[in-house]
């Protein structure tokens, strides 16, 4: 199988399963409002233990990306876009994901994107698609 899924834990469940209700959850400090990713129970900014998963807009920009052409596994469908998307809520709040719903060659650093979810078993992978289809240069 080519689709690898994350191991769900108490800490990361909101991030990987929030898509069930169409929402992207990110860990946020209740005291200083700093977002922390990957999901965590401790605020690295103010050292508070009051951290909880909060829904965010799901809007961001492509911080960097790569179009993968290599068939690492025989059944892998290529090409596809791996990207690091930075969420609009906080500078450097970002994670690895895929950009879908567009020509892989049209993705650029800075492309505005919005979250969309892809369900596999008990996981809703947060993927992103360009906000305005075909508008990138």
């Amino acid at each position: 199988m080519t689709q690898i899924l994350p191991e769900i834990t108490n800490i990361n469940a909101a991030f990987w399963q929030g898509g069930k209700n169409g929402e992207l959850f990110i860990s946020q400090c209740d005291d200083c409002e700093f977002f922390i990713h990957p999901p965590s129970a401790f605020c690295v900014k103010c050292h508070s233990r009051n951290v909880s998963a909060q829904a965010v807009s799901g809007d961001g920009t492509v911080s960097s990306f790569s179009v993968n052409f290599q068939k690492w596994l025989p059944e892998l469908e290529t090409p596809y876009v791996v990207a690091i998307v930075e969420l609009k809520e906080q500078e450097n709040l970002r994670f690895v994901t895929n950009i879908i719903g567009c020509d892989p060659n049209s993705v650029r650093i800075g492309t505005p994107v919005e979250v969309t979810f892809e369900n596999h078993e008990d996981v809703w992978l947060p993927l992103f698609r360009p906000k305005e289809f075909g508008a990138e240069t």
Partner: protein
Amino acid sequence: MKKNVYITGVGQSEVKRPSLKSAEELTVDACLEAVSDAGLSLADIDGVACWPGDNNNGAPFSPIGPVGLKTLLGLDLKWFGGGYEGPGPIASLINGAMAIEAGICRHVLVFRTITESSARQKDKTASTLGKLGAKNGRDRSNLWGNYTPFGVHSAVMLVAMYAQKHFHKYGLTSEQLGQIALTCRANAAENPKAIYRSPMSLDNYLESRMISSPLRMFDCDIHCDASTAIILSRKDCAKDSSRDPVLIEAIGAGNSQPWSWDQISLTHMVARDVAQDMWSKTDLKPNDVDCAQLYDGFSILTLIWMEALGLCEIGEGGRFIEGGKRIARTGEMPINTNGGQLSGGRTHGLGYVHEACQQIWGRAGARQLKTCNTALVAAGGGPLGGSALLRRGDI
């Protein structure tokens, strides 16, 4: 600052794609050569350091760890240690040096064996991340589990995003980046142990298959089977060695960033932390470096290390390597003089230390640099990073 740790000997097995020898045979070849090179016997070795160690029950990435080596060679040790969690592929060198500085050991055998080539002959997917971390389709790795669900089957995709960022922010071009691969290939031509030695042109590079844009096949290192060993000795013990040993002038192991591939600086990873840390521990400057053996698991990593270590200005790496003259063996900053991992073979870390010592000792044969008193070694990509400044000792 007291500096007490010297390299007194190095050894390396054959480097093959694949080798017909077992991991154990390769390891014994490298270790015995290093011990003999230092003028020592196995009975003198009282420490063993390895990165990453046997962290996955004989997996080809590191089939033999300190414990396996201790048993294999029948060593009587005062200290031994391995483990993945440290400042990158030369963490073993750093740990071994610390064991000596702490007064625990006199002579530490640092080694690394890798058998990825023979493993991939049996199963082409042997080194994909999912194969390593996932069980029953679930990736339990705290680190890789963040990436593998998105089709990140190799670190190349993460590193490709660092390259893309460099292209975007600093104007790096494929023609410039290609000079890393070309330089390594030209150096490999003069290294009888290197795996790929036939000439490579810029056109060859540009026409090579795109793996994960903007990185091409020739931007990726080549799997091999090999073992490399380095002997570290305490200053007073190094005096027994038959030739001037190599002094570890400074080590860089700093890391201010999360242990992650996507939360760190996308242009310079942890390399700037490491470099700053290393240069703060020596009076030597980048200008004093005669050659740099810099990690080239992927070509862009070499460029990132060059910038981070101050061998050129931040963002100027592309222009610095353009045309390849400056980084050739006859240039102002020769890099990866044995062909690196891109053409020499993915010995994964200690190969750079081995080559740095060969150059300082004047034993590099046809690829010997005219002058080499000081050599810089740095290894790692993403959150992994460590460096060492080596220079001709003067005991």
